[in-house]
C-alpha cells in the first residue's frame, strides 16, 4: 500500500494546552480514511494542523514527497490538499459562483482540472442557485458548496471535518454517494467524524485518536467486526 500523506511525532496545541501529543498516521492513497474519536480528542486540531492553520510544535508531515509541516496554509493547499472545515465557513457575503471562484486554481501539472460546469453537474442544486447569495442557501447546500469550492482547487487529498453534522439523512446519503464517486476518481480523503454509522458507510480505513494520540488503526471492516473496540475507545 502506498501512502499519500504520512505524519510522525506530530504535536500541536493552543497556548499552554497540548492537544496533539506525538501523533503518527498514514493515509492510504486513493482511499477514504475515517478519523474517529470522542469530543475533544483532537480531531479538528489534527485537521487544522495538516492544512497548516495551526503550525505544529514538533513532528513531520510528508505529503506526496514534500515536507509540509512548516509551510503556510496557502502553500499546503497549492501542493494539493483541500480543506473542508467544520461549520463550512463558506463566504456568505459572496454568491455561490463567487465562492467557487475563490477556490479555483489551475493544476500545477498543466492537465485540465475541475471546471465550474463539471462542478455544477456533480452538484445540480448549486447550479440552480449559482447567483444566489451563499447566505440564503440551505444548510445542505452550504455543505455541498464547501466541498465544491475546495474541489475547484483540484486537490489530491481532501480533509473533511464533520461533513455530516446537522444534515438531514437524505442529504447524508447523497453526500456519501458523492464522496465515494470522488474517491473512485482518485481523490484520497481523511474524514473526521463522530458519527460511527456514517463513517462505517463511507470509509475504507479508520484511525481512532484519544487525548491527542492514535490508539487504533485498521480497516473499517475490522473495526465494524469488533464492536468492543468502538465501545471501549469511542464509548458507542
Amino acid at each position, binding site marked *: 500500500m502506498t501512502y499519500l500523506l504520512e505524519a510522525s511525532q506530530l504535536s500541536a496545541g*493552543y*497556548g*499552554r494546552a497540548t492537544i496533539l501529543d506525538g501523533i503518527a498516521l498514514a493515509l492510504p492513497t486513493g482511499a477514504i480514511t475515517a478519523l474517529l474519536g470522542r469530543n475533544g480528542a483532537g480531531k479538528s486540531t489534527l485537521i487544522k494542523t495538516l*492544512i*497548516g*492553520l*495551526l503550525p505544529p510544535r514538533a513532528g513531520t508531515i510528508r505529503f506526496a514527497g514534500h515536507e509540509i509541516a512548516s509551510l*503556510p*496554509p*496557502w502553500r499546503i*493547499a*497549492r501542493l494539493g490538499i483541500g*480543506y473542508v*472545515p467544520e461549520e463550512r*465557513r463558506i*463566504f*456568505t*457575503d*459572496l454568491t455561490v459562483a*463567487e*465562492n467557487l*471562484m*475563490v*477556490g*479555483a*486554481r489551475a493544476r500545477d501539472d498543466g492537465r485540465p482540472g475541475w471546471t465550474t460546469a463539471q462542478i455544477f453537474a456533480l452538484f445540480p442544486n448549486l447550479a440552480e442557485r449559482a447567483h444566489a447569495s451563499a447566505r440564503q442557501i440551505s444548510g445542505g447546500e452550504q455543505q455541498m458548496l464547501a466541498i465544491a*469550492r*475546495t474541489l475547484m*482547487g483540484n486537490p489530491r487529498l481532501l480533509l473533511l471535518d464533520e461533513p455530516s453534522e446537522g444534515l438531514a439523512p437524505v442529504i447524508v446519503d447523497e453526500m456519501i454517494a458523492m464522496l465515494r464517486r470522488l474517491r473512485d476518481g482518485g481523490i484520497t480523503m481523511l474524514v473526521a467524524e463522530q458519527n460511527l454509522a456514517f463513517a462505517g458507510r463511507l470509509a475504507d480505513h479508520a484511525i481512532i485518536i484519544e487525548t491527542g494520540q492514535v490508539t487504533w488503526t485498521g480497516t473499517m471492516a475490522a473495526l465494524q467486526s469488533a464492536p468492543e473496540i468502538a465501545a471501549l475507545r469511542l464509548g458507542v
Partner: protein
Amino acid sequence: MSFFLTQTLTGLASASSLFLVAAGLTVIFGVTRVVNFAHGSLCMLGAFIGWSILTRLPRDPAWFALGVLGTAAATALIGAALEIGLLRRIYRAPELFQLLATFGVVLVLADATLWLWGPNDLPLPRPPWLRQFVMIAGSRFPLFDLVLIAIGPLVLAGLLLVFHRTRWGVLVRAATQDRDMVAALGVDQRLLFTSVFALGAGLAGLGGVLALPAGSANLQIDLAVITEAFVIVVVGGLGSIGGAYLAAVLIGVLQAFGVVVLPGATLVLVFVVMAVVLVVRPYGLLGRDRGESRTDAEAVTLQRPAGLWQITAAGIGLALFLAAPLLFGPFAMAIATEMLVAMLFAASLHVMMGPGGMPSFGHAAWFGIGAYGAALLAQNLATPMPLALAGAPILAGLAAFAVGAFIVRLSGVYLAMLTLAFAQIVWAVAVQFVGLTGGDNGVLGVWPADPRGFYYVALGLCVGGVLILRRVLFSPFGFALRAGRDAPARAAASGIDMTAHRLAAFTLSGATAGLAGAIFTYSKGSAFPTYISVSHSVDALIMVLLGGIGSLAGPIIGAIAYTGLFDLLLATDFWRARLGAIIIALVLFFPAGLAGWAERRR
C-alpha cells in the same frame, strides 16, 4: 433656493475627497483588520508629492490629470512598502498594538515630510482653468468642484466593479470575511494584503492631491484627515465602501451647511452626528456585526496580585518620589509630577481597557474635563484648590457616566471610535467656545500656593488613586468585570449585569483620569486644548501598551518610562521620528509590553 443648491454642491465636492480617503481606509481595514492610523499621513504625502509633481508639469488639464494619477501611483507604492516592511509582521498582534505601530508610522512620516518639504504650507499655483466658474442657479460655482463631485461616484462605481467583477476583487471580499479560509484554499495572502494596502494608500494619495487646488499641502493634514476618515468609515460601517460614500456625503453636506448656520460648532456637529448614528445603528449605516474575526485568540494572561519583588520595586520607587524635591530640586520635581500624573492617567485607562475590555482612543476627554473643570472652578468661582481637585473627578465621572450609558454596550473598534468621537467633541468645545475656555489660549494662572506642598499632595493623590484602582480590580467587582470580558455569555448567565459593571468601570476610569487632569492643571498652572488632543489620548495608549496590558504594574512602568523617554527626546531634532521609530521597534520586539516581557523572562 440658490443658497441651498450651492451649499449642497459644495458639500458634495468635499464629500468626494473625504470619500477617497475613507474608502482606502475601509478597504484596508476590511481585509487586514488593521486600523491604519497612518492613512492620514498617506493622504498628506499625496498632497506633498502631488505638489512636487504638479508644480513641475505644464499647467493644462491633461497634464494635471496625469500628475494626479502619478501621485496616486507613488503613494500606492509607499503603501506597499509600508505593508511589506512593517504591517505584515504584526497581523497576528493584538489590534491595539497594530494601531500603535501605525501611530509610530504617523510620527515618522510627519518628520520625514517636514525634513523633505520644510515647515511651510505649500499652495498649488492655480492656472486659469482651475479658477473657472460656472453659473448655477444664478451664483458662481467653481468648475473644479464639479469635477470633484463627479470623481466621487466614479471612483465608487469603479471600486464596486473591481470588487464584484474581477477575481482579485472576489478574493478581497472573501478575505474580508474569513482570511484564514481563503489561505486554506491556496490564496497567497501576502500578495492580496500588499495589493489591498497599495490600493488603499493610492486612494488616500488621490484624495490628498485632489484636495490640493482648494487648499495647500501642509503638515496638519495627517491628523485632521485621519480623524475625519475614521468618522466616515465608522458612520458608514467598517469595511463598507458604499457606506463610506453615504457617510462622506452626509458629513460633507452637513459641514457645508454647518459652516453657514452654526459657524462655531462645525467640529462638534460632525461628531454629534457620528455619535447619534452609532447609538442608533451601532455598526454604522451599511455595516454589520462581523462578530469575532476568525483567528485563534491569544491566551489571556492572568492578573495576579503583586509579588514580593514588585512590592519592593514599588517601595523603592515611592521612596525616590518622596525624596525627589529634597535631592534633585525643582526641575526634578516638575518631571516627577508629570510622571505621577501620567501614572494615574495610564492606570485609569488600564481599568477600562484591561479588566474592562473596553479599548479607548479618546481617554484624554476625561483628563481634559478634569483639567478644565479644575481650572474653570478656580478661575471663575474662585474655588480653593482642595475643592477644585475634588470637583474635577466628579465632573469627569459624571460626564463618563452620561456618555458610557450610551456606548458601553458596544465593543472593540466601534467603542474605541465612539470614545474618540467624544474626545473630539470635548476638544472642539475647548477650542471653539472661546468665551468660556479661552480657545487656543487656554485657561491660565491656576497655580498652587505652595509648590513643594502641592508636590506632596500630587504624590499622595496619584499613589492613593492607583492603590484604590488596584483595590477595586481585586474586589469581587473586578473579578466580575474580568469574567465579563473573557466570557460575556457565561458571565451574564451567572447573573452578572455586565452593562452595569462596564458602566461602573467606565465611570471610575473617567473620574480617575479627571483627577489626573486636575492635578496636571495645577502643576502647569494652566489648561490647554492640547490636553484633549488625539495625540494625548494616544500617549495614554502607548503608556498602557508599553508597560503591558496584563497587569496594573504595566501602565505604571509604561507611564514612567514613556514620560522619561519623552522628556529626553523632546530635546532632540526630529524627536517625533525618533519616538515613532522607538514605538515601532517596541511593537515588533516586545509585543507583550515591558512588564509582560519581564514577567516572561522570570
